[in-house]
C-alpha cells in the first residue's frame, strides 16, 4: 500500500509546458466567447443588428464554448497540481487536448457552418426538430464534437484515478475516509487529492450520462422511431450539465488551495471539516440536479422536494468550509497582494456570492416566477465569471510570474482587476435585475420595455471584456517572455 504523505513533487518540464499552453488556449477561448456574449447583449440592446438565426447560433456557441473552456481550464489546474502528488502521464494529457480540439472543430462547424442553434443544453428533441432551420448533419456534428470532448475528459480522469489509487490504495482513502470516519491518525491526503477524487468520480458519472443522451439523440436524428422519453432525456441532460459545470469550479478551487498558502505562509489543511465538506459535496452535487426540473411537475414529488432542500444544503460546504477557511487563512497573514492573489480571492467571493441568488431560485415557489428569466444567467455568471474564471486567470498569472508571489501589483494590473470586478458585477447585477422584472432568457429580440437595462448591461459587459483582454495579454506576453 502506498503511503499517504503529502510532500509535493516537482512537475516535469513537459507537463509544465502542456499546462501553460492549455491556459493560453483557454484564455483565448474565454475571451472570444466573451466577445460573443457581448454581441448578444448588444443585439438585445438594439445597438447591433443580429438576425435571430445568427443570434441563436452565437448563443449556442457562447454557452458550449464557455462550458468547454471552463472545463479545459479547470482540468489543466487540477492536472497541474495533482502531478505534485501522484504519477500522471503527459501523453494522456495531450490525448485529452487532442480530443478537446477535435471536438471544438466539430462543434464550431456544426454551429456556424451547419447552422445548429440548439443551445448548449441540446434539449431533446429540439436538435432533431428545428422547424427547418438546420439539418440533422449540423446537429450530428455538434453531438459528435461533444462526445469527443467527453471522451477526452474521461481519459484524463481515468489516468488521474489510476494515479490516485496507485498512491493511496483506493478512492476511499484518497477522500480521507479513514481519517473522517475511522479515526485514523495518519495524515489525510492533500486538499488537491481530495478535491480531484471527488471530481473524477462525479464527472465520470456526468459524462457517461451525457454520452448516453448524446448517442440516443444522434441516432434519433436519422431514425425518429429510436427515441427516448422526453422527461428521461431532460433528466439525463440536466444531470450531465449540472454536475459538469459545477466540477469546473471544483477543479479550479484547487488553485486556491495550493497557491494562497504561498502568500499567507499558512498551509491549507485537509482537516476533518475539509474532508466532511468534500464528501458531502460528492453526494450533494449528484443529488441536487432536480432543481433544474421544478417546472416539470410530472417529476416524482420527492425528487423535486429533494432538489429544493439539497440546493440549500449544498451551500453549506462552500460557506462553512472553503470560504470560512480562506478568510481565516487571509486574516493577519501579512499577505502582499498581486494580480494573481487578487483574482484567486475574488474567485472565492464570486463563488460564494453567486450561490446566494442560485439557492434562492432553488426554492420551488420562487422558481415558479423566476425560472428561465435572466435571473438564471445572473446567478451563473456570478459564480463563473467572477468565480471560476477569475480563479483560472489568477492561476494563469501566477504561472506567468514564475509560480511565486510577484514583487508588486502594478497600476495597469490594478486597473485590469478593477475593470474585471466592476464590469463583472455590473453584468451580473443587470442580469439579476432583468430577472426581477421578468425578462425571459434566451430571447434574440427583447420587448422595448426591457431595452434600457439591456443597454446598461452591455456597457458593463464591454468593460469586463476589455479588462479580460488586458489580463489575457498580460499572461500571454509574460509566458512568452519566460520561455
Amino acid at each position: 500500500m502506498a503511503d499517504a504523505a503529502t510532500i509535493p513533487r516537482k512537475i516535469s518540464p513537459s507537463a509544465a509546458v502542456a499546462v501553460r499552453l492549455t491556459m493560453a488556449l483557454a484564455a483565448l477561448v474565454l475571451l472570444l466567447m466573451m466577445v460573443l456574449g457581448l454581441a448578444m447583449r448588444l443585439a438585445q440592446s438594439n445597438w447591433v443588428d443580429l438576425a435571430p438565426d445568427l443570434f441563436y447560433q452565437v448563443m449556442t456557441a457562447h454557452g458550449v464554448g464557455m462550458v468547454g473552456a471552463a472545463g479545459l481550464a479547470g482540468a489543466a489546474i487540477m492536472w497541474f497540481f495533482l502531478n505534485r502528488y501522484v504519477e500522471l502521464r503527459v501523453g494522456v494529457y495531450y490525448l485529452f487536448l487532442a480530443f478537446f480540439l477535435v471536438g471544438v472543430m466539430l462543434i464550431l462547424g456544426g454551429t456556424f457552418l451547419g447552422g445548429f442553434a440548439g443551445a448548449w443544453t441540446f434539449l431533446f428533441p429540439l436538435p432533431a426538430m428545428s422547424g427547418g432551420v438546420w439539418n440533422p448533419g449540423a446537429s450530428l456534428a455538434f453531438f459528435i464534437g461533444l462526445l469527443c470532448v467527453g471522451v477526452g475528459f474521461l481519459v484524463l480522469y481515468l489516468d488521474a484515478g489510476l494515479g490516485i489509487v496507485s498512491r493511496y490504495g483506493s478512492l476511499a482513502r484518497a477522500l480521507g475516509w479513514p481519517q473522517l470516519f475511522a479515526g485514523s491518525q495518519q495524515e489525510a491526503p492533500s486538499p488537491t487529492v481530495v478535491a480531484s477524487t471527488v471530481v473524477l468520480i462525479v464527472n465520470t458519472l456526468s459524462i457517461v450520462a451525457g454520452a448516453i443522451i448524446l448517442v440516443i439523440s444522434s441516432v434519433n436524428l436519422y431514425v425518429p422511431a429510436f427515441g427516448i422519453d422526453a422527461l428521461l432525456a431532460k433528466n439525463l441532460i440536466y444531470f450531465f450539465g449540472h454536475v459538469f459545470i459545477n466540477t469546473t469550479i471544483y477543479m479550479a478551487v484547487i488553485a486556491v488551495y495550493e497557491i494562497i498558502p504561498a502568500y499567507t505562509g499558512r498551509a491549507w489543511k485537509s482537516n476533518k471539516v475539509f474532508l466532511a465538506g468534500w464528501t458531502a459535496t460528492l453526494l450533494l452535487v449528484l443529488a441536487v440536479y432536480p432543481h433544474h426540473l421544478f417546472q416539470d411537475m410530472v417529476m416524482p414529488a420527492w425528487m423535486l422536494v429533494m432538489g429544493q432542500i439539497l440546493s440549500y444544503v449544498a451551500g453549506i460546504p462552500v460557506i462553512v468550509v472553503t470560504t470560512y477557511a480562506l478568510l481565516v487563512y487571509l486574516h493577519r497573514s501579512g499577505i502582499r497582494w498581486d494580480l494573481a492573489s487578487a483574482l484567486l480571492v475574488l474567485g472565492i467571493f464570486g463563488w460564494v456570492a453567486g450561490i446566494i441568488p442560485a439557492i434562492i431560485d432553488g426554492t420551488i415557489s420562487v422558481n415558479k416566477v423566476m425560472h428561465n428569466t435572466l435571473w438564471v444567467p445572473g446567478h451563473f455568471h456570478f459564480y463563473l465569471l467572477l468565480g471560476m474564471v477569475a480563479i483560472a486567470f489568477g492561476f494563469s498569472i501566477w504561472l506567468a510570474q514564475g509560480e511565486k508571489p510577484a514583487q508588486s501589483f502594478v497600476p495597469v494590473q490594478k486597473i485590469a482587476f478593477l475593470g474585471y470586478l466592476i464590469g463583472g458585477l455590473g453584468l451580473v447585477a443587470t442580469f439579476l435585475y432583468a430577472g426581477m422584472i421578468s425578462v425571459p432568457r434566451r430571447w434574440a429580440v427583447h420587448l422595448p420595455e426591457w431595452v434600457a437595462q439591456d443597454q446598461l448591461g452591455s456597457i458593463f459587459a464591454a468593460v469586463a471584456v476589455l479588462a479580460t483582454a488586458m489580463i489575457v495579454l498580460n499572461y500571454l506576453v509574460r509566458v512568452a517572455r519566460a520561455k
Partner: protein
Amino acid sequence: MQDAVGIITLVLVTLLAIVFLMVLRRASAPAVAGATADPGRFRAPLFWLLVVVGIGVSYGTLVEWPYGPGPATSGEPMTVTVTGSIWSWEINPTKLPVGKPIVFAVTSSDVNHGFGIYDPDLKMLTQVQAMPGYINKVYYTFSKAGNYKIVCLEYCGLGHHVMAADLTVGP
C-alpha cells in the same frame, strides 16, 4: 415575490462583501503575537445558523405544496388546455373568468416549450413546462381583469421569442 427575492439577494450579497472587506482590510497586517482566540470559533455557530434558517425556509415554502391549487380555492377549477408547437400556442378557452381557480393543462406537440403567463405590466405570474408526451398542470387564480400575455420560456428554436398569445380575463 420578485422584488422580495431581489432585495434579499442584495442584502445577503452586500453582507458577504462586508465580511470579505473586513477580513481583507486586516489581511496584510501581521499576526498578533500571543493571540489565543480560536479562528474556527465562528464556524459551528454559522453552520447551525444556516441549518436553522434552511429548515425554516424549507418548511415555510413547502408546507403548502407549491404545485397545488392553493389554500383559498373552492370548487373544481376550470380547465384550460394548452398545446405548444413550433412556434405558436393553441389555448382553449382564451377568455377566462376573474377570481375563479383555473388549472392549465399544458403539453407540447413537438419540442419543450415554456408556458409563461405575464400580467399587463409584463410581470411573470406563473409558468410551467410544455413537454411532448406529458401534461404538466399549473393552477392560477386571476385576481384582476385585463389582457394577459403568454410567452415561451423554454428555448425552442428560431421563433422562440415571438411565440406569444393573448388571454383575456374578465368578470
